[in-house]
């Protein structure tokens, strides 16, 4: 079916003038927006724990990196998937290429949403989509200054993004889960079943 033919039929049925409409705007209840940064951070950590993620606050990026290395040591993970610009010298020689075989992926979140325990990632360039998808465990680094109250805050930013958005934006809220087998919740069905989040307080 030709596009124009279908659009003409739609215009006729809708008695449309074809002009650009103004989308309806609405302000959600004010209590959903948390002004206090400490409270936002605390809610984020709380919600992540509720979703089954391991979330903790660290003072600095160096401390987050040390925590990653400690986790890798404890779990005997020899390799890691991580965008090159996020890697630091002591993991640079442990970067793997085939994510399907790697035990752990680490990425930096663009934003985090306190209300839902969500990290927002923007894969693109050297940040591969598969880093946060194929390994059975994934870690996210979140800067405290990037913690927003809720979805509303980030969607407004998407509309305002002057250069547009990358081809892929993803909201991740805890481990992959499914309740399709006998209504029992299983983790890690396709995506990572283990999720770590480090919130850097100084950034």
């Amino acid at each position, binding site marked *: *079916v*030709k*596009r124009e033919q*279908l*659009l003409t*039929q*739609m*215009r006729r*049925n*809708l008695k*449309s003038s074809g*002009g650009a*409409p103004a*989308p*309806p705007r*609405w302000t*959600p*209840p004010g209590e*959903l927006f948390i002004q206090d940064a400490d409270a936002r951070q605390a809610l984020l950590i709380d919600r992540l724990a509720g979703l089954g993620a391991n979330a903790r606050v660290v003072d600095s990026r160096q401390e987050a990196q040390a925590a990653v290395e400690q986790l890798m040591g404890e779990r005997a993970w020899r390799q890691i998937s991580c965008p090159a610009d996020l890697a630091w010298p002591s993991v640079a020689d442990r970067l793997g290429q085939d994510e*399907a075989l790697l035990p752990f992926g680490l990425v930096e979140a663009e934003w985090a949403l306190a209300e*839902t*325990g969500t990290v927002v990632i923007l*894969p*693109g*360039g*050297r940040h*591969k*989509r*598969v880093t946060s*998808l*194929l390994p059975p465990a994934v870690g996210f680094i979140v800067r405290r200054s990037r913690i927003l109250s809720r*979805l*509303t805050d980030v*969607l*407004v930013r*998407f*509309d305002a993004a002057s250069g547009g*958005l*990358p*081809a*892929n*934006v*993803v*909201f*991740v*809220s805890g*481990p*992959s*889960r*499914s*309740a*399709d*087998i*006998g*209504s*029992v919740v299983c983790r*890690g*069905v*396709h*995506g990572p079943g283990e999720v770590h989040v480090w919130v850097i307080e100084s950034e």
Partner: protein
Amino acid sequence: VRRARARYQRVLAAAANDPALQEVLRTYQDDIQAGHDAEARGIAGWDAWRDQVAVVREHTVAHLDYYLEQFARQVERHGGQVSFAADAAEACRIVGDVAADAGAGLVVKSKSMVSEEVGLNRALQARGMEVAETDLGEYILQLADERPAHIVGPALHKSLQDVTELFSKEAGRRLNSEPDELAAFARQALREKFLAADVGISGCNFGVASTGAVVLVTSEGNGRMATSLPRTHIVLMGLERLVPDWQSLDSLLTVLPRAGVGGAITTYVSGITGPRRAGDADGPERLHVVVLDNGRADLLGGPYESMLHCIRCGACLDFCPVFRHVGGHSYGPVYSGPMGAVLTPLLLGLEEWADLPYLCSLCGACEEVCSARIPLTRLILSLRRDAVEAGLVPLEWRLGMQAFAAVTERPRAYGAALRGAGRAVDALTRHEIKPPDAILRPWTASRELPLPARRPFGDWWAGRQALGCPGPEGRP
């Protein structure tokens, strides 16, 4: 019509007489209703959020011509391709052509009700392609060769034991009835498919008209894999799945998971705008969006336009007392519950599906919970009216209803009928006469037959008044 009705009544009877299914349906509805209520209580302004969903959907559908054109242009601006399909056959042909062009031997799919609507899997298989459903629920159904029973939880009618049997057969060895072990098997089996697939097919929860983004709401991660790993990504979407811009998604993404799965958000919400960009390390090289009409455009500007406001949360199924007893398969091929009872006749033809609007007690529970405030019972009543006017209901119903109307519209006739019925019951009882089963059976098979009183209430009341007995509140 008669053949369709007979087949349909067999399905209904089978569901109602299946104790295992009845147990599954009860448990699922009780659990999901509790989750839904908890999430609704857990966010400030729940009803206002739903009002806003209704406002956004109504606005978008009222200007769908503008937003659809804008969406298509934006997808193309970002390097994607867009095709329009008038019906199921054309949609299957276009998807098949794109997949064949991509050299597809193996296609991985994430859950898409529109693909069920057009019968995509069989069409691709007929062209020699292997199609792997990767949503865990859909994978279970593909192994069982069954249709989805619920638009959100397609395999909720399958017990743990059922899944153990199906997966064990597929694995060629006996698996334990442990959900985690079964999930691990599915993960391994499907991971191989993901890594080998040439084409990934997804649906589209929402399309953002202002930027051309396709938004997917998923929990397992299979949606991200199907849209990230294969070299070609095909999106199949109904033409009404749009919103004006990202901000308009706020209410929809706030309400959908809470109403649909009883959670504040699903694990993954992805926005996909075109194929991978220059310099991107991964992602599909080609993105093709197929926009399906299949009767939707005909609904615009008409009495059923509000059905296009539906966001497919499934809440109407989760609260429907009829769905609780008959299950999803009783509603025909794809869409079930109250939304299916309306949408299926509209998309697939009232002639074949005239019975669906009668799978409803008109209790209004669906309207009460509908995320987009669709007046479902009004639409169901309207479809019933259409079915009667088109002569699609059985002759005995029509004659019976006409007789009922003729009597109840005339007070004298009504009184006489009641007195006559009372006397008839009296006489039958006195002489121990049982009416032939064939006459009463169509009614009594599934309902009580209330016996008329020997003396109608109206007569009794008039007699009291004649004797000067006090009326309500002591007034004579």
